């Protein structure tokens, strides 16, 4: 069974540019999460999809971030325009059931560097 995949693995862009990150969850997993780790600090929750619907986007830092999950399959996270403080590693995770006890399976992450 394929795990969670993310593309690209690395992205280097200049301030003001746009970047789109993609996440493909494990097949059949309705729940998809985005997290971010900035500057070696803790991993922070960004948002949660159940199928194509945003269940919780309370962790999204501002309106420069837009997440979508068309058709309830893969998800994209767009940053427009990117700022220096957006640099970090963006993780995607999926789970089959959801709920507090559910195990989330993480992708390898996308390392974003904004210059």
């Amino acid at each position, binding site marked *: 069974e394929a795990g969670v995949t993310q593309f690209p693995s690395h992205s280097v862009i200049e301030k003001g540019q746009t970047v789109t990150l993609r996440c493909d969850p494990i097949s059949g997993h309705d729940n998809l999460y985005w997290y971010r780790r900035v500057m070696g600090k*803790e991993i922070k929750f960004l948002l949660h999809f159940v199928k194509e619907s945003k269940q919780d986007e*309370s962790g999204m830092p501002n309106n420069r971030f837009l997440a979508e999950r068309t058709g309830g399959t893969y998800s994209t996270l767009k940053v427009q325009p990117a700022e220096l403080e957006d640099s970090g590693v963006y993780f995607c995770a999926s789970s089959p059931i959801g709920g507090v006890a559910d195990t989330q399976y993480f992708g390898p992450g996308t390392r974003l560097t904004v210059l």
Partner: protein
Amino acid sequence: AQSVAQPEDQVNVAEGNPLTVKCTYSVSGNPYLFWYVQYPNRGLQFLLKYITGDNLVKGSYGFEAEFNKSQTSFHLKKPSALVSDSALYFCAVRDFPSNNNDMRFGAGTRLTVKP
């Protein structure tokens, strides 16, 4: 709101010695606790979780963790460390009943096992 602390940024142990990676938590309800490991250039891998029941939880790769309610701790342990255990370890907590999407992670502890 829930929170997690990993008091050590770095833990160094010799191969064959026991290892402990510390984690303390704060919740308003009941904690659901998780340990993840990140190997170089890889995503977060699930190690183990505590939901309810036996306070000693056994997980992957010979790791175990002990839930201690009075000390609000969930330290990760292994009786005999391997060089291949060198990685970044993250503790995470969810608060039940609560918003089940918001899993809080610690800042991570880098474990180095020396031959």
